């Protein structure tokens, strides 16, 4: 089994931290997280707004500088890569952004957006090769040829997102951070894009970090899942396992909150107390405790550690054994 290349982690994150200094204090956006992403697989990263999932994605491709911790991609330390190494790394890891409206420059044509990485990396020798390559990328993501010279404002959200995907594919990367790529889209378009992403993964042997707040999407597309809450990972497992039996009380609540569009699927929702507290200068102790239906006084004392409570099941909860 261990010889199977798909089981090897292509990306290893260890004790990653990112704090932002804001006027009210220190925002613990990403607070000491560690995880691996297996080659050719999809890791889903789930959490509610402000849990640090987007920051994590940006740290991986170094759009933000991390405060501490390590990110190893294919043996290269991303956090300390020189600008030369970064240039090489960028051809291997790319990102697809959330907002199909703000993530592409409104003043550039479809072709110049998709072709920009080719020009920067001088991947093509002449104009003819450039045009061929752009056409090929457009075909890969399902954009009609006639849109070559179109401007983004002439296109709908789904097509814009395809542009973003084509741009990310232009450098032929192996790893792509997908930051909520479908959450701004309507269901029928969302399904088209999800299918596209899965097809591309099969065809090009891509590895994804798939960031989303939508559990049904992540359940559909991911092989493994990490669930984040206020900058920390609360649970990490294989997708199937996690949805069959969520252990962390927060995972339980999330999983119960998925609205299932089937008759007789109505189930009891776990209703959590109050709302997410601020990630600015969090108090010690379990960050979920104020909303947890099972919290005990000791939960507010020490930070729970992410630990293996069952084979292959990592949970950060003081009372995890109760739910196993």
């Amino acid at each position, binding site marked *: 089994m261990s010889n199977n290349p798909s089981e090897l982690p292509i990306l290893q994150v260890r004790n990653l931290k990112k704090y932002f200094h804001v006027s009210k204090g220190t925002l613990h956006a990403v607070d000491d997280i560690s995880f691996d992403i297996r080659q050719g697989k999809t890791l889903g990263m789930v959490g509610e707004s402000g849990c640090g999932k987007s920051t994590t994605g*940006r740290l991986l*491709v170094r*759009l933000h500088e991390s405060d501490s911790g390590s990110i190893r991609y294919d043996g290269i330390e991303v956090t300390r890569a020189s600008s030369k190494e*970064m*240039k090489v790394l*960028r*051809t291997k890891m*790319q*990102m697809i*952004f*959330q*907002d199909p409206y*703000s*993530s*592409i*420059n*409104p*003043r*550039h*044509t479809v072709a110049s957006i998709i072709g*920009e*990485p080719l020009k*920067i*990396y001088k991947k093509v020798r002449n*104009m*003819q090769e450039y*045009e061929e390559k752009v056409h090929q990328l457009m075909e890969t993501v399902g954009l009609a040829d006639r849109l070559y*010279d179109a401007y983004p*404002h*002439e296109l709908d959200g789904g097509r814009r997102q395809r542009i*973003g995907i084509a*741009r*990310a594919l*232009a*450098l032929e990367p192996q790893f792509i951070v997908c930051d909520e790529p479908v959450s701004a889209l309507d269901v029928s378009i969302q399904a088209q894009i999800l299918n596209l992403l899965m097809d591309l993964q099969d065809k090009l042997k891509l590895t994804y970090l798939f960031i989303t707040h939508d559990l049904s999407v992540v359940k559909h597309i991911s092989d493994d899942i990490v669930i984040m809450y206020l900058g920390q990972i609360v649970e990490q497992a294989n997708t199937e396992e996690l949805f069959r039996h969520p252990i962390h009380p927060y995972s339980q609540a999330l999983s119960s909150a998925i609205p299932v569009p089937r008759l007789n699927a109505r189930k009891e929702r776990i209703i959590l107390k109050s709302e997410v507290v601020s990630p600015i200068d969090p108090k010690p102790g379990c960050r979920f405790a104020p909303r947890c239906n099972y919290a005990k006084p000791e939960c507010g004392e020490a930070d729970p550690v992410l630990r293996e409570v069952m084979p292959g099941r990592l949970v950060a909860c003081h009372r995890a054994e109760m739910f196993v």
Partner: protein
Amino acid sequence: MGNNTLSRFMARQSKNITQFWRQFSRNKLAVASLFLVLIFALIAIFADFLYSYDFVTSNSLENALLKPGQTGTVYYHDKEITHTFILGSDNYGRDILGRLVHGARVSMIIGFATVAMAIAVGGLLGAIAGYKGGLFDTLIMRVTDIVLSIPTILMSIAIVAALGNSFFNLLIAISTSMIPGYIRIVRASIISIKDQEYVEAARCIGASDLRIVLRHILPNITSPVIVQSTLNVGSSILWASSLSFLGLGILPPKPEWGNMLSEAREFIQYAPHLLFAPGLAILLTVLAYNLIGDGLRDALDPKLKR
């Protein structure tokens, strides 16, 4: 295929221009203003063909304070000719229309030169403040605050007083008062664009800082700068006439709309036409630039596209 690329590029540009013009031409007042400004520009360019400069600056006291349409005898190249003063004459017997025509040239040059200077300085400082941030930003914005807390007219007067009364110093005095505006606009636009995901995306595909500024940020801040500049050409003309009126800009006998009014002050009781012609010239010009600015604002606003 290369040929194809070029023709497609041209087609794209003409599509953009057509689209822009369709938006702009919906504002009839702005189109009329553009027309007016073009006429004024032509008059300014061909001023010497319409009236010779010597003629509009030399005195002929026997023709003083003629009413519009009256004729008088003038000496021109030592010849005696009869001249119709279409808009009358001033207290030195100079032709008002002729002085207006030459004044248009001065105003036009001042308007464009000051705005160009302000864009160059203000744009650069604003771009540094917005893109680099941190210490540069603080420093530039503090100084801007300081300059803004001195009333602009006093600042201009003080600069002219300090540097001496010359055309170039007048340009400096006026453009200084506009620089803070450009710093703020450019800085604000850059900061808002810097937060856009497409700038992050550009960084992600390995674009350098220079490329990001030139290809992604600059094209997106031209619209607000163009709008601001159009409005500023108008206010610059207004400022110049105010300073000339105070005796700090263009001094008589050089023709300038503001100093024409300044000279007219004592005679308005007897010759009200001295008051109306230059005043209306300023009013119409400034109004036209304001209307064009409004029209551009609407036509260039991406929110109103399509």
